[in-house]
Each structure stands twice: as structure tokens, then as C-alpha cells.
């Protein structure tokens, strides 16, 4: 077994009764003292902080950085500096290597945030594919820590920490600014919860200082300390895919409902031919969200049946803390993928009725 790494926040999290689990090579909190349900509600109702330092950071820069990144990812990253783009990287057959956010730092510089569990594979893939471009690829994951601060009061908390106003930042933009007395923090208007908020990239050496400033300011806003457990329930309520559960090399972005990140008109890119075919000819299976009609909680790998025959598998499932009922996702044949379609999820050997619903499962009340 390889040694697990600790993020710069480990000791600070331990003060809040963090229960640590191994994830993506790190010891990360799965829950804190409040417990999953309360942590989840803290993000939906107030503000919560997540340590997501396991995420990977890769910088691609140089003369041909733009064509290199355009070749690597499916979305169009030829955007203005200061903008960010959610996308996937695919292999030639359209299978997904990872989903990621690409931040355009400048004309010739891109900062990529990739899944921690995919980091080493991604870096190898990126380096191989970037060989024929005049650019440099650097894995800076070990230099950066990351905090996600999410919830309806996230901007209020940030306003106590930084003179850079976050409330007016458009979604998928970023800026480097001083936060909590730490210079050069990257503030990104992104997240994985469906709530307003930011993701803060901070150098490891400054991480503890940022945390303490945030914790002090957080007291009056009811800041919750949140683990991986509620990160999963929050993202699933929004039907945001989790790499490894919901998307992988065996599924393409069209099947996964991510056609919106596949920009065929931008020019050549890896997987383009396969994805063009998938778009024009249609796909045989689609990733859907469903709610249970009968009693039972869907869980990853439970079989999905129709008329007694297996038609798919649950990729993610849980009890939704916001809705108070079970929700799940999975790939099903296209003919069964319409809203209202009835399926059975096999729970401990028994078929339990489920129904395909519109997603996201959770709809935030507009303020």
C-alpha cells in the first residue's frame, strides 16, 4: 500500500473532528463533527467549506498552448483570459479520459484542474498528446491546495476576506487576488454543489493562513466544515457526473448528456470523428436521473431492469438530503431514457419501481 498524503489543512480539520478516509492518494475528511446531513444543509442554507486539495493542477503554456489544449479537450477553450471552461478530454473512440475545468490565464497559458484520482493518467495522456505542439506541460498538483466555499452566504463570507467582490463575478470566470491576507489566491467562480460560491486555489505554504482567516470570518456566517460525503450528495442532487462512477472511458460525452461540451465546429480534436458520429447517428444509451417509486435506495452497481431483463446499472445513488427521498442515475437504452419512463432497480434481489425524472433533482429557489 502506498503512503497516503495529507493536505495542508489536515491538522486544522482534525480540530473539527474530521473522520478521514483514503481518497485519490490523500487522507481526506469524509465527515466532520456535524455529520453528513447537517453538512449538506449548511451548504444549501448557509455556507460550507470543502478541502479539495487532492484535485490536480496542470499548466500548459507556450507558443502552441492554444492549439494543444484545443486538440486535447472537446469544448472550445479559445475564450478571453480570465474565463474558465468546463469540458471533457476523450480518446479517439470518444471514451472520456477525465472531466476538467480549463482556466485561460493568458494568450498562451492554460491552467487545468483535473480529478485527483485521474491526475497521473491525465498528465501522461496530456504529455503524450502535446508532444507535437510547441508547448510546455507541467504538473503543479503538489504545489497547490484548494478550498471550495459554497452556499448562499459564500459571497458574504468572501466579502469579509477579500476586497475582490465575488458576488458579481459571472459564473466560470476567475481572478487572482488577496484573500484573508494571502496574496495571489486564485478565486474561481465555479463549484460542484449547485450553490453560488467560489473555489480558491492557494499555494501550500499559504494554505493554513487562508484557512485560519476563513475560519475566523466564518463564525458569524455559520460556516460549516464539509466532507466528501456531502460533496457527493450535493453534486448528485444537481446530476453533476462523478468521474469513475458516472463517466469513464467506456462512455462518451454524448451518452452522458454532455453534448453541450462537445464543440464540433471548433476544428480537429481528439475523439472528434467518434463524437460527430454519436451526435448525428444518435446513441444507444443515455445517462438519466430517476427517483424511486417503491421503497429502496439505489446504490452504485445495482442492476436496472425492464420487464425482468437487465438494461443497465446504477452509476450513482443516494438518499437526497434536500429532497428527503432516494435519487439515482444510470445509463439506460435510449428508448427508456425519456422523462416518466418506468424502470426497476434491483435492491437486494427485489425489483423496486423507479421513474425517470427531469434533472437537476434539486432546484434552487431563486432569491
Amino acid at each position: 500500500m502506498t503512503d497516503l498524503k495529507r493536505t495542508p489543512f489536515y491538522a486544522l480539520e482534525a480540530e473539527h473532528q474530521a473522520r478521514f478516509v483514503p481518497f485519490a492518494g490523500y487522507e481526506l475528511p469524509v465527515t466532520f463533527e456535524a455529520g453528513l446531513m447537517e453538512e449538506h444543509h449548511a451548504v444549501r442554507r448557509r455556507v460550507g467549506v470543502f478541502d479539495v486539495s487532492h484535485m490536480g493542477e496542470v499548466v500548459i503554456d507556450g507558443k502552441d498552448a492554444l492549439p494543444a489544449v484545443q486538440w486535447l479537450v472537446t469544448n472550445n477553450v479559445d475564450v478571453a483570459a480570465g474565463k474558465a471552461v468546463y469540458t471533457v478530454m476523450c480518446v479517439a473512440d470518444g471514451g472520456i479520459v477525465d472531466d476538467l475545468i480549463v482556466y485561460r490565464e493568458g494568450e498562451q497559458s492554460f491552467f487545468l484542474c483535473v480529478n485527483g484520482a485521474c491526475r497521473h493518467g491525465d498528465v501522461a495522456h496530456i504529455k503524450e498528446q502535446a508532444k507535437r505542439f510547441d508547448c510546455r506541460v507541467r504538473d503543479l498538483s503538489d504545489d497547490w491546495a484548494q478550498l471550495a466555499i459554497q452556499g448562499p452566504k459564500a459571497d458574504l463570507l468572501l466579502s469579509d476576506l477579500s476586497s475582490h467582490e465575488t458576488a458579481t463575478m459571472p459564473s466560470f470566470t476567475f481572478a487572482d487576488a488577496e484573500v484573508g491576507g494571502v496574496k495571489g489566491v486564485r478565486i474561481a467562480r465555479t463549484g460542484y454543489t449547485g450553490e453560488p460560491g467560489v473555489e480558491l486555489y492557494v499555494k501550500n505554504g499559504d494554505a493554513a493562513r487562508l484557512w485560519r482567516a476563513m475560519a475566523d470570518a466564518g463564525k458569524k456566517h455559520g460556516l460549516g466544515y464539509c466532507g466528501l460525503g456531502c460533496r457527493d450528495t450535493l453534486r448528485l442532487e444537481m446530476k453533476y457526473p462523478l468521474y469513475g462512477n458516472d463517466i469513464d472511458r467506456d462512455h462518451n460525452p454524448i451518452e452522458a448528456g454532455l453534448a453541450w461540451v462537445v464543440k464540433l465546429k471548433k476544428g480537429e480534436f481528439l475523439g472528434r470523428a467518434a463524437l460527430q458520429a454519436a451526435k448525428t447517428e444518435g446513441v444507444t444509451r443515455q445517462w438519466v436521473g430517476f427517483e424511486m417509486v417503491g421503497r429502496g435506495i439505489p446504490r452504485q452497481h445495482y442492476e436496472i431492469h425492464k420487464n425482468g431483463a437487465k438494461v443497465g446499472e446504477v452509476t450513482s445513488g443516494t438518499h437526497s438530503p434536500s429532497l428527503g427521498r432516494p435519487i439515482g442515475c444510470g445509463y439506460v437504452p435510449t428508448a427508456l431514457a425519456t422523462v416518466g419512463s418506468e424502470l426497476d432497480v434491483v435492491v437486494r434481489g427485489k425489483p423496486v419501481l423507479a421513474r425517470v425524472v427531469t434533472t437537476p433533482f434539486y432546484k434552487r429557489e431563486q432569491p
Partner: protein
Amino acid sequence: MNIPDGQKYTKEHEWARKDGDLVVVGITDHAQHKLGDIVFVELPAVGAQVKAGATFGTVESVKAVSDLFAPLSGEVTAVNDALTNAPETVNKDPYGSAWMIKVKPSQASELDKLLSPADYEKLCDSEG
């Protein structure tokens, strides 16, 4: 750690308490704490036979599915149906209102083989 006297325990974190001719069964405070927020409880029907060491139901927290193991063999004579709609009771009152089933034992001596409160406490300490 809350491990009341006057009842027995299993290695799988159930408790069993004599109540006249019957034995009342539930899960321990340690178990509910480890599981976290419990959101689903599935129990057998009245009249079902349970067997010592075999599963008789399921509890689920938001993240995890956990089997329930019968402390002893016998016939289920009562089931706490209130837990179906209020599974969170298991977190709040695991030894009281969140009892799960009542069993008419087929071999009352099975109860003697279960863990004493002191032995159960040692088990919990060793599991951390």
C-alpha cells in the same frame, strides 16, 4: 460510550434484551454513531423466522448499507413499523423507541452466548 447493563450484545453491534418470554432487538449507540444519519430501515414481517447470526434486515445511512444480524433464533412476534417513516429515530434513541423486532426464542440459551456489556465495550474499543 453508551452501553447499558441488563442486556446482551453481538459482535455485529446489535443489542438483545429479555422482555418476559420475548427478546427485544435493536442496534447499539456505537453502531448508529458509526453509520451516521440513518435514512432507511427494512425489517422482516411478523411471523418470519430469524436465525442466530443470519441477517434479518437492513439499515442504510446516506452513504452506507448495513445488514442487521439476529442475536438469536426464533419467530418474529412484533416489528417496529414506526421506523419505516422515521428511520432517524435509530440515531436518536437506539435502545428505546428505535427497537426493531421482538423475537420468541426457539433456544433461550442462545442469549447466554452473546457478549456482556463489558465484553462489548472492549470490542468497540478495539475497533476504534
